[in-house]
C-alpha cells in the first residue's frame, strides 16, 4: 500500500457535486432538498467543512443561506477542482457502497439510539472518503489486472486534516481499521465510531478489496458497544440509490449557462444574506434592549419595594411620632399662652416650631414614598409659578439670591395636580436657591412645548453636583451625600411627583455653564381635547 506524496493530488480543492445537487442548492428552499442532497458526498463533505455537521445532528444554515453553493461557485474555475462521474465503474460501486454504509449507520443509530441518525448517515457516507478523493483526481484506482496500492484510510485522514474537519469525524473515518478503544483515545466518539465501523463491516461485502473494514476481532468491541452480541442485524444488501437524472449527467462545468445562473443566484443570495445580516443585527439590538429592559425592570422592582417599605415606615412612624408631638406642642402652646417672660416665650416658641418641623419631615417622607395619585385638572402654570415664588421668596431674600422668571407667552394646555406640580417646582427652585452663591441668581424658564411635553428649566449659578453624586441625585436612599446641593428629599420628591404625572426631572450637565435641572411634563396631546381650549 502506498500513500501518494501530499503533492498535487491532495492539494485538491475537492470535487463538484452532481449537477442536480447544484440545481437544488440554487433553489430558495435548498434545505428542503436535504434528503437527496445528503446522498451526494461532495455536499456532505462541504457541509462538514463549513461546520454544519456535528455529533448531535446536521445544521443546514449553510445550505439555506447559499454559502454552500457559493463555495462551489467560487472554486468553479479552479483547475484542480475535481469531478466524479458516478455512473462509471468503479465510482458507481463506490457510490453504492457509500450509500449502503450511510444507510446502515443511520439504521444502527436509530436502533441503538446512541447517536444522532443524521450524523451517523453523514459519517457513514464519508467512510470511503479516501477513494472519493482519488476518483476526483481522475486517478485510476484499480488498473486492470491489479489491486490498488492506495491506502484509502490514510488518504482520508490527510485529506480531512487538511480541510480541518472536526476531530471526531477524522477519527471515525480515518481509523476504521482500529479497535474502538484506540479510536476513542484518538478523539473519536465511541458511539458514532462503533456505529460506522459496524456499518462498514456489514456493508463491505463483496467490496472487501476496498479495504475499509477492519478484521472481525477489531469490530467485536464496537458490536459490544452497540449491544449486538447476538450478532449484527440483517441489512438488505442493496439500499435504494437515488438515480442521477440523464440530463444532469456529466461534468456540471460543461452544462451551458449553469455557471452564470449559479453565480447570479449566488449574488442574489449574498444580497439576501446582507439584509439577513442587518436583520440579525437588529435582532441582536432587540435582544440587547430586552435584556436592558429586564435589568432595569429588576431595578424598578427593587426601587418600588424600597419605596413601599419607606411608605410603610413613614405611615407607622407618622402616627407614633405625631401623637407625642401633639402633646409636646400642645403643652408648650398652653404654657406659651400664659408666659410673659420673653426668654421663656422664645424657648417655648422654638419647641412648638421644632415639633412642626418634625411633623413636616414625616409628611415629606410620605409625599416622596407614596404620593397621592395626581388629581388631574387643567393647570394654570402662571398661577403655580406665582405660588412657588411666594413660597421661596423669603429664602431667596435671606440668601440674597436674585430670582428671574421667564414665562412662555402663550397659554399651554397642561393637565396635572396643581398642588403636586407646585410642590415639585418648589422643591427644584428651593434646591437651586440653596445651591446658588450668595448674591447669585436662579433662573426659571418655561420653554415652549415640544411634541408632547413641556419643559421648565431651573438654573442657578452655584456649583453643580459632584460627578460621582450625579446618578444618585434623585435617589433618597443614597447614603454618600455630602453637604450642599441635594440634601434632604427635595430633588427625589420633585422627581417622584413628575414621574407620577408621566414626566421626569433630569439634571443637565453643562461644562462651565450654570447648573441646570429640567422638569418635564407631558402636555395634553392633540388627540385629547384640551380642557383649557374647551373653556376658552
Amino acid at each position, binding site marked *: 500500500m502506498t500513500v501518494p506524496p501530499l503533492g498535487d493530488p491532495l492539494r485538491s480543492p475537492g470535487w463538484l457535486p452532481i449537477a442536480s445537487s447544484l440545481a437544488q442548492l440554487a433553489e430558495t428552499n435548498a434545505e428542503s432538498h436535504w434528503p437527496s442532497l445528503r446522498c451526494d458526498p461532495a455536499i456532505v463533505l462541504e457541509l462538514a467543512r463549513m461546520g454544519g455537521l456535528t455529533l448531535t445532528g446536521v445544521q443546514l444554515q449553510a445550505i439555506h443561506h447559499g454559502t454552500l453553493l457559493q463555495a462551489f461557485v467560487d472554486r468553479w474555475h479552479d483547475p484542480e477542482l475535481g469531478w466524479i462521474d458516478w455512473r462509471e465503474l468503479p465510482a458507481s460501486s463506490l457510490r453504492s457502497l457509500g450509500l449502503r454504509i450511510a444507510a446502515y449507520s443511520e439504521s444502527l443509530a436509530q436502533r441503538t439510539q446512541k447517536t444522532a441518525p443524521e450524523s451517523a448517515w453523514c459519517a457513514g457516507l464519508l467512510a470511503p472518503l479516501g477513494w472519493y478523493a482519488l476518483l476526483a483526481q481522475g486517478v485510476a484506482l484499480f488498473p486492470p489486472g491489479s489491486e490498488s496500492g492506495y491506502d484509502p484510510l490514510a488518504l482520508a485522514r490527510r485529506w480531512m486534516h487538511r480541510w480541518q474537519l472536526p476531530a471526531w469525524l477524522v477519527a471515525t473515518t480515518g481509523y476504521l481499521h482500529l479497535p474502538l478503544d484506540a479510536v476513542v483515545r484518538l478523539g473519536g466518539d465511541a458511539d458514532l465510531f462503533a456505529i460506522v465501523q459496524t456499518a462498514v463491516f456489514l456493508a463491505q461485502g463483496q467490496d472487501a478489496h476496498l479495504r475499509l473494514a477492519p478484521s472481525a476481532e477489531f469490530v467485536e468491541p464496537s458490536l459490544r458497544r452497540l449491544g449486538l452480541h447476538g450478532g449484527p442485524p440483517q441489512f438488505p444488501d442493496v439500499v435504494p440509490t437515488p438515480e442521477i437524472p440523464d440530463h444532469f449527467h456529466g461534468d456540471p462545468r460543461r452544462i451551458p449557462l449553469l455557471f452564470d445562473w449559479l453565480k447570479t443566484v449566488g449574488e442574489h443570495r449574498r444580497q439576501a444574506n446582507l439584509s439577513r445580516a442587518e436583520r440579525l443585527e437588529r435582532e441582536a439590538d432587540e435582544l440587547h434592549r430586552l435584556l436592558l429592559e429586564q435589568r432595569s425592570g429588576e431595578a424598578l422592582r427593587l426601587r418600588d419595594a424600597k419605596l413601599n417599605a419607606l411608605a410603610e415606615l413613614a405611615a407607622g412612624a407618622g402616627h407614633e411620632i405625631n401623637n407625642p408631638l401633639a402633646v409636646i406642642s400642645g403643652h408648650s*402652646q398652653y404654657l406659651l399662652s400664659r408666659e410673659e417672660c420673653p426668654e421663656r416665650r422664645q424657648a417655648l416658641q422654638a419647641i412648638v416650631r421644632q415639633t412642626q418641623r418634625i411633623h413636616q419631615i414625616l409628611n415629606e417622607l410620605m409625599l416622596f414614598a407614596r404620593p397621592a395619585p395626581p388629581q388631574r385638572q387643567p393647570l394654570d402654570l402662571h398661577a403655580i409659578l406665582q405660588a412657588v415664588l411666594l413660597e421661596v421668596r423669603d429664602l431667596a431674600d435671606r440668601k440674597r439670591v436674585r430670582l428671574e422668571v421667564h414665562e412662555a407667552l402663550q397659554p399651554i394646555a397642561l393637565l396635572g395636580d396643581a398642588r403636586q406640580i407646585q410642590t415639585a417646582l418648589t422643591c427644584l427652585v428651593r434646591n437651586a436657591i440653596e445651591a446658588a452663591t450668595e448674591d447669585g441668581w436662579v433662573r426659571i424658564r418655561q420653554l415652549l412645548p415640544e411634541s408632547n411635553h413641556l419643559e421648565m428649566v431651573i438654573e442657578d449659578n452655584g456649583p453643580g453636583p459632584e460627578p460621582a453624586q450625579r446618578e444618585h441625585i434623585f435617589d433618597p436612599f443614597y447614603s454618600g451625600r455630602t453637604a450642599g446641593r441635594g440634601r434632604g428629599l427635595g430633588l427625589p420628591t420633585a422627581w417622584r411627583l413628575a414621574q407620577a404625572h408621566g414626566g421626569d426631572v433630569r439634571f443637565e450637565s453643562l461644562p462651565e455653564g450654570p447648573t441646570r435641572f429640567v422638569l418635564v411634563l407631558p402636555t395634553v396631546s392633540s388627540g385629547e381635547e384640551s380642557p383649557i381650549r374647551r373653556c376658552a
Partner: protein
Amino acid sequence: MKTVFTTGEAAKICKVSQQTIIRCFDNGQLRGFRVPGSRFRRIPREALYKFMKDNGIPTDALESGKRKVLLVDDDVDLVELILKVLEEDGRFEVRVAQNGFDAGMMVKEYRPDLIILDVMLPDINGKEVCQRVRADNTLEDVRIICISGMIEEDKIQELKLSGADDFLHKPFDIEELIERMCAQLEIEPASASA
C-alpha cells in the same frame, strides 16, 4: 356665663332653625335688640329663657349655656391638656372617652354637640365611630372633628367620607382646634372670657 345670644346661638340652644328664631324675634314673640348701627339681632339670656319656658322647650341647655363636647382619645397627656384648655375657655362642657366602646355609649347618653375624635383608638377605629354616629338618625346634628397623627392622604379622605366634618393633623395649633370647634358649632370664634 353668656348673657347675650345671636339668633344662630339661640337656634342651637332651642334646637330649632335660625329662620324660626328670626321670625319669632321679628314678630315679637322673642324679645331682643339690634346691635346699634347694624341690623344684627341679639337676644338677652332672660328673654331667651322666657321664650323657651313659654314654648315648652327644655331649658337645661340654656341653664349651663355651654356646648357639650365629647373628647375621645386614649392619650392621657393630650386629654388632660385639651380638657384644661377647653375648661379655661369656658364655653364648653367636656366629657372624655378613652376608647371607641365608651365613646359609643356616651354619644347616646350624653348627646354631645361635638365630638373630638382621635382616629386611632385602642379598640375600634375612628372611622367606625364616625359611621355609627352617622347611621343614627337621632344624632344627625352631632358634629365630628377628627384628630390624628396619621399622614396618609388617602386615609384622611376616607375618614371625611365616613362622616367626619373636619380633620386636624397632630400636632396641631390649640387655637386652631378651638376655631374649628367654633366653626362647627357656629359660635363666634373669640372666647367670651377672652
